[in-house]
């Protein structure tokens, strides 16, 4: 008897091959991705790397995201399949199988599917793990021997988790069967839906949600708000998209239907009413596709551009091979003598200094009315603040070696020259904490670092004075507070990455000795930053993000493709009957085909177009987010965005072609 159930289950799976093969394959991919995430999270080789903390955090997040999406996704596909199979199950019921017998068959089927998906997924995951690790090492710029290991955690997490998931789908199917009688089961796959009602409130709400999200994206400049508001905007867009697709599409279609000349036209008649008829169940699917597509586009383009721009970001964040920062709280500490000591140490390490700079930077966060600047009490990046650097001509030339000495003319006592951006300083005078100066000249000037800051601030200006004494008298008037006086000593030198790191470590211990020499009672603010030393961590962070972006991109893409596929198939079966009738009433097969094509096109390209609009609207806020992550290269991001979109569209189009062929096959198989 039990053998019979097994055979029945196998036959069922075989007969429903077109439905089950994609389902199982998608399961395999999901399990494989899950395994790989856990594998990267627990990899002993990665553990030894500096910055592995980032990788582990990022991949740990990835595990949860993938776990969450596989839950939704498996349920979604399963419900599609069981809806299609209700008729078949109804026949079993009528032929005399009790519901518990059917449950047994369904259970065996689920076991088959689960075993195939989990075993297959683990095989694929383990099989590709070495390759994936090699790619990751490559991305992170890590030299290392990649050894083949099987992560036990990957298996011990994946197997129970996915077993539970499949068990839940089985329970869902059971519930579907329990709740219905045989006649209902027989008709289960083609229950006529009532025409949806127009929901004006929901449509308007959807428009408001999306409108406000776009408004946030275009107007938010305060960097602290950018991060939190970005999340708000994402949620608004998701909610708004669902509202617009469910209610807005129906409102629009009804509006089209009201236009008699448009509606009673061969080209639109059946497309409009067909869409309207099915929008209720369709809309959620379309909105999901749209949201997923937007996520893929934004995530992949952001992570790709971050990774592609990693050298720029390093350069912005660490302008020189070695930078030493010191604050002037300590009497007797002079930047020149410290610079001298460091220079000796660097040379002792065998490095040749190619470039050096030494300057003082007085940084003040201010608010202004255009000409009068006053200090703010809080030091934070804020869209209403302007940052001022009070410098001498020497300082300015040291700061940026790309400035020509002739281009920066000296300035007379009592006046200043102002360099900065985003726009040139306009007035003839400037008042700083009550001290008035006349402005001799002003020019637009931005270096990489300022570009990064002006993305978060109102402006960023270098105010050039005649002497250090003038500067001191200016900020002295302001007293303690939001003013930073900082000495910066920078060196560029030759050598390999390892040599540079060794040199940094030597300088670092020298700084320890200097700090100690000032005694316990002084708080010495003196520290060094090395680009080579931090490079590994930056690569780990951005490489890890890039990796996660690619992984989740693949995952979302699979989900999108599956939703499209099952939607097409199930609609094909539903539409089949309609087209049989239309042909009987006098529609030619060409007209049928044309009408199908136009309907499919709308359903397909609508989510893609809306996703593209979302992505474009997100551009300003993402540009600011990237600037906070030191990526100021807007062009790079724009290119990444366009390339990602084109790639995605290409894949989307291929899926479209394949699934519409499946759809045509179903329609064409109609009986006369």
């Amino acid at each position, binding site marked *: 008897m039990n053998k019979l159930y097994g055979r029945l289950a196998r036959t069922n799976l075989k007969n429903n091959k077109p439905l089950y093969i994609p389902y199982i394959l998608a399961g395999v991919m999901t399990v494989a991705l899950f395994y790989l995430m856990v594998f990267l999270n627990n990899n002993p080789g990665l553990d030894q790397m500096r910055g592995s903390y980032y990788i582990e955090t990022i991949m740990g997040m990835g595990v949860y995201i993938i776990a969450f999406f596989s839950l939704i996704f498996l349920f979604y596909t399963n419900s599609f399949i069981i809806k299609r199979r209700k008729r078949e199950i109804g026949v079993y019921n009528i032929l005399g199988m009790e519901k518990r017998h059917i449950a047994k068959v369904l259970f065996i089927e689920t076991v088959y599917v689960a075993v195939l998906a989990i075993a297959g997924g683990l095989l694929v995951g383990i099989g590709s793990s070495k390759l994936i690790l090699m790619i990751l090492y490559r991305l992170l710029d890590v030299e290392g021997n990649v050894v083949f290991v099987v992560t036990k955690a990957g298996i011990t997490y994946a197997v129970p988790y996915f077993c539970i998931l499949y068990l839940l789908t089985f329970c869902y199917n059971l519930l579907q069967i329990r709740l219905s009688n045989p006649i209902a089961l027989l008709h289960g796959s083609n229950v*006529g839906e*009532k*025409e949806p009602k127009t929901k004006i409130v929901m449509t308007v709400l959807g428009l408001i949600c999306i409108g406000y999200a776009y408004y946030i994206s275009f107007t938010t400049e305060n960097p602290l708000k950018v991060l939190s508001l970005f999340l708000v905007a994402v949620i608004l867009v998701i909610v708004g998209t669902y509202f617009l697709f469910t209610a807005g599409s129906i409102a629009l279609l009804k509006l089209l239907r009201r236009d*008699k*000349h448009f509606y*009673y*036209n*061969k080209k639109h*008649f*059946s497309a409009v*009413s*067909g869409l*309207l*008829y*099915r929008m209720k169940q369709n809309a959620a699917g379309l909105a999901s596709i749209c949201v997923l597509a937007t996520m893929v586009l934004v995530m992949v383009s952001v992570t790709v551009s971050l990774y592609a721009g990693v050298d720029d970001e390093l350069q912005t964040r660490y302008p020189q091979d070695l930078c030493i920062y010191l604050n002037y709280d300590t009497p007797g500490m002079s930047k020149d003598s410290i610079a001298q000591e460091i220079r000796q140490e660097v040379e002792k390490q065998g490095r040749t200094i190619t470039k050096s700079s030494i300057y003082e930077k007085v940084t003040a966060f201010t608010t202004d009315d255009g000409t009068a600047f006053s200090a703010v009490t809080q030091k934070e990046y804020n869209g209403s603040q302007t940052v001022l650097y009070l410098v001498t001509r020497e300082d300015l030339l040291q700061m940026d070696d790309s400035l020509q000495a002739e281009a920066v003319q000296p300035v007379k006592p009592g006046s200043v020259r102002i360099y900065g951006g985003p726009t040139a300083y306009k007035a003839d005078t400037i008042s700083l904490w009550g001290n008035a100066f006349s402005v001799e000249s002003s020019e637009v000037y931005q270096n990489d670092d300022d570009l990064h800051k002006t993305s978060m601030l109102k402006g960023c200006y270098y105010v050039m004075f005649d002497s250090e004494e003038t500067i001191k008298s200016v900020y002295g008037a302001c007293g303690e507070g939001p003013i930073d006086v900082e000495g910066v000593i920078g060196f560029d030198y030759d050598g390999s990455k390892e040599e540079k790191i060794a040199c940094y470590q030597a300088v670092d211990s020298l700084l320890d000795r200097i700090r100690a020499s000032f005694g316990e009672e002084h708080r010495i603010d003196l520290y060094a930053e090395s680009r080579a030393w931090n490079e590994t961590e930056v690569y780990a962070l951005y490489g890890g993000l890039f990796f996660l972006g690619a992984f989740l991109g693949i995952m979302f893409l699979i989900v999108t493709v599956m939703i499209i596929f099952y939607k097409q198939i199930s609609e094909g079966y539903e539409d089949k009957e*309609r087209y049989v*009738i*239309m*042909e*009987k*009433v*006098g*529609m*030619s*097969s*060409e*007209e049928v085909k044309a009408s199908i094509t136009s309907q499919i096109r709308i359903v397909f390209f609508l989510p893609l177009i809306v996703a593209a609009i979302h992505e474009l609207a997100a551009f300003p806020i993402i540009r600011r987010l990237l600037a906070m992550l030191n990526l100021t290269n807007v062009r790079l991001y724009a290119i990444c965005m366009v390339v990602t979109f084109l790639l995605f569209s290409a894949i989307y189009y291929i899926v479209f072609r394949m699934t519409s062929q499946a759809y045509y096959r179903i329609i064409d198989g109609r009986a*006369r």
Partner: protein
Amino acid sequence: MSILEVSNLKKIYTTRFGANQVQALSNISFSVEEGEYVAIMGESGSGKTTLLNILAALDQPTDGEVILNGKKLQSVREKEIAAFRRKHLGFVFQDFNLLDNFNLRDNIYLPLVLSDTKHAEMEARLEPLAKKLGISQLLDKFPYEVSGGQKQRVAVARALITRPELILADEPTGALDSKATDSLLNLFGQINQEGQTILMVTHSTKAASHAGRVLFIKDGEVFHQLYRGNMTNEQLYARIADTLTVLQAGGEQHE
């Protein structure tokens, strides 16, 4: 003048790979005059549906020809066939074949929309028709909101709105209860009185007893035909019943 002429119609279905041949129609000839109301009766498997499909230009005969209003059906080109059917034929089916995604009004408009009729013209045609069929109040409802009898009236309206030369009805009362059947048959009688030619294929003696002439088909041939003459519906009903008895008994004797 005869509106439909069917001569020596023959249809042989060949199974795949030509292993078996099934003769659905062996030799059918008859003609329908303008304004006539003809019922075709026969058992399942007698070839009724095949005949109807050929008359509807949904299927091609193996031999013989169908002439509708002077035009040979087989000579209509494949591309024009859909338009031809829309223009010259109206269909009423057993299972109504209304589309759930259209309201009743749009269901009726469908053939007109397909032939690019102006909206004003469509409205002008629908109004008197809907009144006659008693469905004026229902037009904004959807098929799943009305009864079977009402659905069939809508289907009749859809068939009539193109003003076809011939209405082909395939078991129009098959899915209706007796009250709805009576009212539909009365309706058919009424539109026939107004000059509409109707050809109805049916199982039901009652449905056939409303026609002006009844053709009996058996084994792919016209076996017999009855004219109403001066008979009432009840008298015709009795004659049909007698004929069917002979038909069936005779069939058994042959075996």
